[in-house]
């Protein structure tokens, strides 16, 4: 079994982990996973739950795909990825329904829709199917955290402006007039657009 991660230095692991957080951030840099990014970021709690679900599914799928990478037939690999992802998404969905039913209801169809989240299938194809267990694991943690943080930043801005609260705790002065539009789809598009612009300015300055 050829393992590309064998003999890799800690610097490579660190680079793989940090890539998901900033340089290859799935939302801000790769523009992947836009559906949940726009749909579940009206408040921080659902955004965080969605992020944690994606971390779980990404971790499990990357581990499984990495373990069976040498057995995959090229023409059946996407089918195998989808099968793996669908399994863990179903488990995540059942977990939410059993232990956090209110949140499961808030997230609605967006939890089952993680199956078609391109971040997960992208990492299975680009990383897990070509690398060993350690690299795939670190990549999943980095990408998952990057995605979750992005969702939380977006949701934080939207929740603050739409309700004057963060994590359902009032933080704005009583005189603050909530911007109702921020909790609607238009608020998601505007906030995402502005944050993407900001990230582009920062990255241009860095280069």
């Amino acid at each position: 079994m050829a393992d590309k991660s064998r003999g890799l230095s800690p610097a490579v692991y660190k680079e793989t982990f940090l890539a998901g957080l900033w340089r290859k951030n799935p939302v801000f840099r790769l523009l992947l996973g836009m559906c949940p990014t726009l749909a579940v970021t009206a408040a921080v709690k659902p955004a965080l739950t969605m992020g944690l679900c994606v971390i779980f599914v990404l971790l499990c799928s990357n581990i499984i795909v990495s373990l069976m990478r040498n057995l995959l037939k090229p023409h059946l690999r996407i089918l195998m990825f989808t099968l793996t992802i669908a399994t863990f998404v179903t488990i995540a969905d059942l977990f939410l329904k059993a232990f956090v039913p209110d949140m499961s209801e808030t997230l609605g169809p967006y939890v089952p829709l993680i199956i078609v989240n391109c971040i997960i299938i992208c990492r299975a194809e680009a990383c897990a199917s070509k690398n060993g267990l350690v690299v795939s694991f670190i990549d999943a943690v980095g990408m998952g955290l990057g995605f979750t943080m992005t969702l939380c930043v977006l949701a934080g801005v939207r929740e603050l402006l739409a309700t004057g609260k963060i994590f359902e705790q009032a933080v704005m002065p009583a005189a603050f007039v909530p911007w109702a539009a921020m909790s609607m789809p238009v608020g998601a598009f505007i906030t995402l657009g502005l944050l993407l612009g900001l990230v582009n300015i920062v990255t241009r300055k860095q280069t």
Partner: protein
Amino acid sequence: MSKIKHFFQQSWLLIVASFCFGLLIAVTNAAWSERIEQNEREKLFSLMRGLVGDANDFEIALEEAQIPAKKGRVIKTDIYRAIDKGGKGVGFAYVSIGSGFADKIKLVIAVDSKCEKFFGFKVLASNETPGFGSKIKEDYFSSQFKDAPAGKLELVKTGDDEKIDSEIVAISGATVSSEAVVEIINNSIIHIRSKLQEKGLVTNGR
């Protein structure tokens, strides 16, 4: 024979993985399904309690009552009898389902013990458009159904939404969702009443 061999050579991993993943889901489902059903039951009972204020408990009055739906389909639903602290029946509640704008809408509907007026409805599940169709959950729309006559309701685009009668004023920008709610209620109440009358549970129903 060689074709079969080739098939298994190519797809054995898929077959094995499907079996293993299927087993994993089945085990997880078996472990949590009771809890999920319990959560759903608790939610249903809390919604029914919210609708029938005097209710102390609910018992199944009629199991799997059949409501004819569109395209020849049949909705099977349990009809619950609301009982007050003295053990007296104060109303009935049931779940009905119909097509909304984006997805199915599942409602809990409650009527009084004579099946003459509605106690109202609550949304058990829906995926209507946020900010528009999702307003079917809001009080200003659902309060129009409270104490409305338990007969055929009519959806109107303009009118007095505070007046309690058989006219329901649609939500602006969400006519399809409003229509869906009225249709679900209209379609179910006639059949529910006749089922209750057949069983002698309602005598004074119209």
